[in-house]
């Protein structure tokens, strides 16, 4: 067992079509792997009945011919996506017991194409965190290990990252508000893609910061990211910010030819105190793209330094508004009330019990920066700085840059619990290379390209032009082939 779950989407698709394997066999293999991997804390709601039912349907559809690429492919779904009849609680105690009566558009798109849902995946509570340590389910654990310590798989899509890297499923959905697909992907040595804002519908995805949130694929290869994005993306009338644009054929864009492309290297991403290994990895990435015929160009994105503070105003502000809906009235947890408690006490006790400390912190920061007297000083100023950050990117793209290469994270995965006593701001620094992309609404992809001294994966990030995921995927494909990253964690769980 476990051999089939190691397949990529592309490999499984070809085997399914050739009749060499059935979706039921693939699904059973994944389910067995999941049952043996509780120590990873990746799957938090298992749905074997739904999986086997969908797998049998997929097999029938494949046999009939003309099945979509994702047909019969077993995937995991991040707990942030509402899935009809299956617990969906954004890893929060406040949504304990919530089973949606509806399905998110992205997970519905996957289901319509015949993908098989294996279960729901762990994450940071309401996607707020960079280490999967804020989850009500407990930590998700990185399958990579170099000593006795349990390492973080990153966050917020930590369960998705852990499950894909440990071959519990062929791929998983993630969401990315400040780096929550790309940072965990880099920490576990897989590919993670955040699409252009508006490419994937946000309908039915529990909202964190609506102007920044995007769903995307987390996969074992760049080709798989192309295949899965094709299924997840597309216009949705139920999300007014979803773009009514035709989708390019993402997989067909993987030609491996990037000759003449201009790749920007932003000076501002060379941070003080950046580990030598990250610097070396970045230099290797530049060389790989250059060897493939791309032109490497030094560029400047002058407002980079202000991206994190701007993000930590805008995202909590939107979160404080979005999370106002958790009031103990319509769904989820309601606190037990004392005699004489009124509706106000019900709200306050429910939210104090239901939200974890990081979520409370961000809701309160958001409330503060939106409150009378501070709105202009914080929120409006941050939105102006955000406009400048976006303009930085527009300027370099207008000057002929096709894509931007940066490190994905400032370090390799760290130990669970190691940041427990640190200032929350220290944890926020994890997003330093990824958060600009959300603020500017751009597509970004993390690709594993090497290992650090201790043997942990490290990734590089490519940032593309708006709506040019196809071109970005092709550049990522070149990077992937040149890096030849094949390392896998050895099984200890």
């Amino acid at each position, binding site marked *: 067992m476990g051999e089939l779950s190691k397949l990529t989407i592309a490999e499984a698709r070809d085997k399914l079509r050739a009749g060499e394997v059935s979706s039921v066999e693939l699904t059973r293999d994944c389910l067995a792997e999941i049952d043996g991997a509780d120590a990873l804390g990746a799957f938090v709601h298992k749905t074997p009945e739904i999986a086997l039912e969908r797998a049998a349907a997929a097999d029938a559809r494949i046999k009939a011919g003309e099945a979509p690429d994702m047909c019969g492919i077993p995937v995991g779904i991040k707990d942030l996506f509402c899935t009809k009849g299956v617990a969906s609680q954004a890893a929060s105690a406040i949504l304990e*017991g919530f*089973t*949606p*009566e509806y399905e998110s558009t992205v997970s519905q798109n996957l289901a319509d194409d015949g993908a098989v849902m294996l279960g729901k995946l762990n994450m940071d509570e309401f996607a707020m965190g960079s280490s999967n340590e804020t989850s009500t389910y407990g930590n998700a654990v990185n399958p990579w290990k170099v000593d006795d310590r349990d390492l973080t798989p990153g966050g917020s899509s930590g369960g998705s990252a852990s499950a894909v890297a440990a071959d519990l499923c062929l791929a998983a959905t993630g969401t990315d508000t400040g780096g929550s697909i790309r940072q965990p992907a880099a920490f576990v040595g897989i590919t993670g893609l955040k699409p*252009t*804002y508006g490419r994937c519908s946000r309908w039915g995805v529990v909202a964190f910061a609506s*102007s*920044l949130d995007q769903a995307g694929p987390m996969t074992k290869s760049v080709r798989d990211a192309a295949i899965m994005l094709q299924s997840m993306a597309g216009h949705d*009338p139920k999300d*007014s*910010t979803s*773009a*009514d644009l035709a989708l390019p054929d993402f997989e067909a864009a993987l030609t491996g030819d990037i000759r003449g492309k201009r790749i920007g290297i932003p000076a501002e991403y060379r941070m003080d105190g950046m580990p030598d290994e990250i610097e070396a990895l970045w230099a290797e990435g530049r060389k790989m793209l250059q060897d493939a015929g791309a032109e490497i160009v030094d560029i400047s994105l002058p407002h980079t*330094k*202000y991206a*994190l*503070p701007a993000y*930590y*105003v805008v995202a909590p502000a939107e979160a404080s508004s979005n999370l*106002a809906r958790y*009031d*103990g*009235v*319509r*769904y*989820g*947890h309601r606190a037990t009330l004392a005699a004489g408690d*009124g*509706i*106000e*006490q*019900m*709200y*306050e006790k429910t*939210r*104090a019990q239901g*939200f974890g400390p990081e979520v*409370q*912190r961000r809701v*309160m*920061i958001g*409330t*503060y*920066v939106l*409150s009378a007297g501070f709105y202009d000083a*914080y929120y*409006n*100023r*941050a*939105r*102006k*700085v*955000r*406009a*400048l950050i*976006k303009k930085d990117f527009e300027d370099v793209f207008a000057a002929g840059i096709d894509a931007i290469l940066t490190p994905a994270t400032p370090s390799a995965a760290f130990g669970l619990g190691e940041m427990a006593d640190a*200032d929350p701001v220290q944890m*926020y620094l994890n997003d330093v290379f990824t958060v600009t992309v959300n603020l*500017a609404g751009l597509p970004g992809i993390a690709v594993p390209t090497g290992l650090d001294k201790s043997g942990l994966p490290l990734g590089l990030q490519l940032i593309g032009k*708006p709506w040019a995921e196809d071109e970005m995927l092709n550049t990522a494909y070149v990077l992937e082939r040149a890096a030849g990253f094949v390392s896998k964690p050895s099984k200890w769980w």
Partner: protein
Amino acid sequence: MSIDIDTARRVAHLARIAVDEKDLPALAGELSNILTFMEQLNEVDVEGVAPMTSVTPMRLKRREDKVTDGDYQEQILSNAPDAREGFFAVPKVVE
């Protein structure tokens, strides 16, 4: 900008999150640290810059003003902690 205990109490109330009096000093400290981090934004010259309202330049779609969805009271109430006779039930609001 530093947040004092009174401000922390006020913010917690605005956010409708019950915080024990004994936890307020620590909360005030944490919020102050985060705000200090945000203060870097004051270094940026934002003169004449319009605040971003939409990250992708897109005209919002319009549609005819008619009912396209609804009529499922039962599903809407199915997750309520307390639903009675087709309504959400809450503690008494009006005296």
